[in-house]
């Protein structure tokens, strides 16, 4: 964590130095100090738009996570569902979300709903595939043990396979938390009246590069906070996940 921060500060310093030495105009590339000034001066506006984007991301994550996990369970529990729905799962990923963004805006309007739909769509796939993969990979010896104990089919799924697959679901949710902001921002670019993506597009159009960078900075901060919070929650909720390499700094 500390080392990551140092990398960030060094990059900021290089950026500041480059802008100062090259004399590049601020409307093309503002130095970090200008961005900081813009961040403070426009704090109210940025906070307002950040709240909206944050809501879209969280709602998309909740909805996409639930739908993805539900889809995975359905695919594993029912063979007909697998035959009928697996193509749908693949198609949901094969179609670039950019391509249908205008359509979703048309259907769900310029408000929150179309962005939540977009984020949901982009989150659904990693969650569904990761969880389904986990559910399919239950140790066969564990299933043998369960059957020898006379487990009911429901218990085999809910009390053996699902808990055994929770670490896989957690991986899917981590990936989802990483891509969730993309869905929301794409939605806001295509058509919106609020949100950080809208603000950035708007600032870009008016050559307010400093505001654009300030909004981008806040977005990155939100994405990082989301990821680390989710990671901490998942670690606490599923303490039996095996770690290949610990994330903790020594």
């Amino acid at each position, binding site marked *: 964590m500390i080392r990551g921060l140092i990398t960030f500060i060094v990059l900021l310093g290089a950026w500041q130095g480059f802008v100062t030495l090259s004399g590049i105009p601020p409307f093309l590339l503002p130095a970090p100090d200008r961005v900081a000034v813009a961040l403070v001066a426009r704090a109210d506006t940025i906070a307002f738009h950040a709240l909206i984007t944050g809501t879209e991301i969280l709602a998309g994550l909740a909805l996409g996570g639930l739908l993805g996990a539900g889809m995975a369970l359905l695919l594993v529990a029912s063979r007909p569902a697998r035959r009928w729905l697996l193509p749908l799962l693949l198609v949901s990923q094969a179609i670039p979300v950019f391509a249908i963004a205008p359509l979703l805006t048309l259907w769900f309007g310029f408000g929150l709903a179309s962005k939540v739909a977009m984020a949901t769509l982009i989150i659904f796939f990693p969650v569904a595939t990761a969880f389904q993969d986990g559910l399919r990979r239950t*140790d066969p010896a*564990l299933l*043998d*043990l369960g059957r*020898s*104990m006379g487990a*009911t089919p429901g*218990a085999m799924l809910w009390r053996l396979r699902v808990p055994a697959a929770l670490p896989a679901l957690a991986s899917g949710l981590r990936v989802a938390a990483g891509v969730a902001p993309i869905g929301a921002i794409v939605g806001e670019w295509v058509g919106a009246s609020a949100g950080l993506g809208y603000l950035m597009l708007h600032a870009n159009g008016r050559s307010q590069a400093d505001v654009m960078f300030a909004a981008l900075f806040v977005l990155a901060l939100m994405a990082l906070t989301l990821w680390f919070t989710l990671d901490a929650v998942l670690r606490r909720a*599923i303490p*039996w996940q095996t770690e290949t390499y610990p994330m903790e700094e020594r």
Partner: protein
Amino acid sequence: MAALDLRLDLPQGLALGAEPVLAPLSLTLRGGAWTVLLGPSGVGKSTLLRAIAGLLPGVPGLGPAAMMPQQDLLVPWRDALANVTLGAHLRGQPPDLDRARALLAEVGLDPADHRKRPAQLSGGMRQRVALARTLMEDRPLVLLDEPFSAVDAPTRHRLQTLAARLLAGRTVLLVTHDPLEALRLADQMFLLAGSPAAPVPLSVPDGLAPRDPAALGAAQAALLERLAA
């Protein structure tokens, strides 16, 4: 109560897919005694064990059996005590916690460790919990699939002695790679060999199991030669 002999008949042998694994065979597990099955990896020992457990489609098996698998297979999300009561949990029955605690004490788990998760226990301790889980099922037939292969030699020795004591009176089938383990615990012994495989009877040393390894040196050497041949 004297346990009855159990006989598995596979008059057609057994195939997994198109691959014949087991030759036509008939195997009798002597009631209340330990039957040990030796044989090279991949010869079909586990398949025979699964057939006996009734886990293979089309093979009725030899009635309800408690299984103790190769790795301890404790589920990581339940503590030691809850792993012992896993069977009741999977059948939707209320767990008999008093009996589970008594069994954990009997296999030598400190009461302070009853609420620990498997990850917090040593390999030997986990194997003890797995033994308690097997006993908790309280079935007349017990199937052990290389249950002590993942622990160090002294721990294995202690666990063998413990299992011999706690499983006395039950009909046990032990699958193992370890000639010494086989000679210590067997009342009757078979070598599963060939392709498709069939059980060949092996001679068992005198005396009652668990036998003292000190007296098994020559028998172990002879058995090792036989297995390596």
